[in-house]
């Protein structure tokens, strides 16, 4: 293990793909001959997804390899580096994004599984019209609910998902919803204050 830094996730990814038989969006428009050695049908085609409101088409074998995680695609292919990769193993929550509104660990999700899905990253939370931060972001700003900030985008995403589903969670429900997020500076207490602030303000409205 120690010698090999080829990520398990990628290896597992390939295995998962074999089981599932890549679900391709539609037929390839191009020749799709960039797949050498990947063992994937070069005519597999495209997948399309909406990311932060913009629709993107990704060619399998070119833009996306079957073993690419969504975290990798978001960051390296699409350039949304606000999503962080901490452990790349599904343990730390730094890579949390919304897929069709639900919080998902993007390092444990294959991009090719996301065909037709709508993805929201931290970059997609600000109001597109006004440029204002999302109320959850604003509360984190107001409460300095972070220190180094590396885990913050993931925590904000999970908070948004929680409040979308349950606008008035109890403290215990908030803690459980965020329990998958590794924060090492120990900003948890300020995060809880920030989340409660969002709840309080939304109840006043």
């Amino acid at each position, binding site marked *: 293990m120690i010698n090999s830094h080829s990520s398990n996730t990628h290896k597992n990814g390939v295995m998962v793909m074999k089981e599932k038989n890549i679900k391709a969006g539609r037929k390839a428009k191009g020749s799709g001959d960039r797949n050498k050695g990947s063992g994937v049908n070069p005519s597999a085609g495209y997948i399309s997804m909406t990311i932060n409101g913009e629709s993107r088409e990704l060619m399998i074998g070119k833009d996306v390899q079957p073993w690419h995680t969504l975290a990798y695609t978001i960051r390296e292919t699409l350039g949304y*580096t606000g999503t962080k990769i901490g452990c790349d193993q599904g343990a730390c929550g730094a890579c949390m994004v919304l897929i069709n509104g639900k919080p998902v660990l993007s390092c444990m999700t294959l991009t090719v599984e996301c065909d037709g899905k709508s993805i929201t990253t931290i970059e997609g939370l600000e109001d597109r019209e006004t440029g204002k931060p999302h109320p959850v972001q604003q509360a984190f700003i107001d409460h*300095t609910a972070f220190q180094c900030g590396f885990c913050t985008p993931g925590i904000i995403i999970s908070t948004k998902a929680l409040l979308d589903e349950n606008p008035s969670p109890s403290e215990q429900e908030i803690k459980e919803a965020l329990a998958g997020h590794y924060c090492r500076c120990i900003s948890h207490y300020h995060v809880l204050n920030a989340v409660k602030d969002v709840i309080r303000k939304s109840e006043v409205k």
Partner: protein
Amino acid sequence: MSTEYRFIGKAVPRKDARDITTGRAKYINDISVPHMLYGKVLRSPHPHANIRSINTSKAKALSGVKAVLTYRDVPDWKVGNPLHLRVLGSKMRFVGDSVALVAAETEEIACAALELIDVDYEVLPAVYDVEKAIEKGAPQLYDIYPNNIMPQIAPFMGDNILQNIIMGDTEAGVKEADVVAEGTYEYNNIPNPLPPEPPGAVAEWEGPDTVHLWISSQGPYFDRLTLYYMLGRKVNVKVTACQCGGSYGSKGNSSPIYLQAILLAKAAGRPVKLCLNKQEHLTAFTLRLGSRIRGKVGMKKDGTVTAISGDWFVNTGYFSMITQGQVAVGLGEAQLAIRCKNWDLKSKTICTNRNASGWIRGFGGQEFISALFLLLARAMQKANIDPFEFFKKNFVKNGDRNIWRDGHWWTSKVIDFTKAMDKGAEVFDWHNKWRGWLKPTSISGTKRTGVGVGVIGNADVGEDVSESLIRIDPTHHAMIYTSVCEQGTGQRSSLCKMAAEVLQIPPERIYLAPQDPGISPYEFGSVGSRGTYAMGAGIIKAAEDAKRQLFELAAPLLEASPDSLETRDGLIFIKGKPEESIPWRTAMGVTRTIFGYGRHEADYSLCNMLMSFVEVEVDTETGKVDLLRVVNATDIGQIIDPPSLENQLNGCIGSAGIDSAIFEETILDESNGRMLAANLIDYKWRTFADLPRIKNVIVETPFPSHRFGAVGVGEITTAPGPSAVLMAISNAIGQRVVEYPATPDKILKALGRIKESSA
């Protein structure tokens, strides 16, 4: 609070808050440079081995591979203190040591290339225990360091650094004592501070003798300086510090990564990113120092410590980045925490065949007192002394003299910390909850609660030099030029607040120049608890210097002396006459900027203090320990930014702090030198669902530091807790538990419910 400030002491959103919460903040792995390659490291599977032969031809032949480097291909660049570890060598000293480097078009190709490197190893016997490592005939890690003992130097701390505390007469002290305790105690579970962001670097050569390096660091100026020497004083290193995704000191040990990225970029002729993954972060990056004391203490019934003697064995793993400096600070901190006239305590920094220990929050002090306090607790128990009263009595007092890290005697100019200690005890309800040694606070079925307390102080608040420049503009803005970077403390924003208070313009009108030590003046770094006083003093002086120049320009226009002037919100007026004012731009003209310069000189006469009270609940049936409550008591003179301070204090449980007494540990399999729990699932960490209650008691007694009378406290927040937790557990179950971390097996063993492991 004695003085009313306009900005100081009030919560102001951090300058980087918007960037952090929107994903715009750029961390090291977010950096991308055109034509960038990806670097990977082949790591040793053996804890101790020589490379007999290494064949990279298949790796080089792989399509997309742009460089493969082994020890044969690289210059004799070294890292460490002193410079002793070659950037790539033929000798492997731990499982995870660097065998070869690859740069390729993609990370996947680089990983594939690693698999194609053939290495033949001559496997050598390994040693992991510090006392075994110094025995005759033990495996030797470095030919230049017989018996694996590192030289006792740390050049940036001076020529005479503190490595042994020798003063008074310990034999006489023991005779004077009412009780004597003796024994061997350890804080040796080498937890990992484990910031969420793994370490890394991006290197790009801009010419034959200039390299641009992006880093995740706490001290970019200092990194730039040390790299200059490591690279043989021949290369101009341009350093850009990215937003740092947590460090807790650890990223101060990144030099090997920097050099490897620089070498790969040179060999490939293209920029290279070298970021460690989490497994490498856990197995091949900074652990806490291993700490073992074989010692003896003498104590009187009134809590006077009459003698401390013994040996402190420090395990630095396969190399030392700055361990001897940590030893120096740790020994200094012990004298601040425990007043004692007779010391005979000698340290040894020892190399072993495991991953390196090094620079971590607590910086030697945590490692030292977490072992020493177990020994002192034994004596306190014998003498039946309340540990709170003991620490209160023995913490450094104004006028005490002690030897600091530089080996010099300093006279402490400290405030009376007992006020904060008493307030902490009151908030915690110590006097009610403390029932005596090995006595639980409460019993309910199988569950018992107990309390413990610890303390630490550090004279690092004014350590080392900080320089700053402030430019004031006729638009009533100011720009701060500092090599201070941001790793989570909010320091850059707090510096803006200090400048804002001096210049009397809102912090929103103060900007920070990029974190670039090519632009900004000397700065030791955001290390220790030096941000508030040392860095603050540099900023304050720079702002005052700029303001003085501004007033000199304004004085003739206002027909007054510069000393009689005042400014507020960009207007200058004679004190008390704000109605007759002129704006900065009138005084300066629109075609001028003013530069103010400030410098803080090292000052080791002040120290901070943190006392942590903890309450635990132990299930005697399962051996599980729950941390119920922490009360941290401190006196920091003046709060600069309340939420940032609270955040730092809450950090007491994370980053290999209090939880290193409960469940955090790095487990080494000594049969093969490999680390178990080398991932974030197996390495235990605390979640949102398991938070204890934390209360921070913050007293503000002005310090003789700078004009705001403040000092920092961030370095020490993790340090007093671990030994306090073992004290609390021991009291809860009525049996001494003196091994970190107190996992259920150890609790049940102490209770006699299970026998010593047969393994």
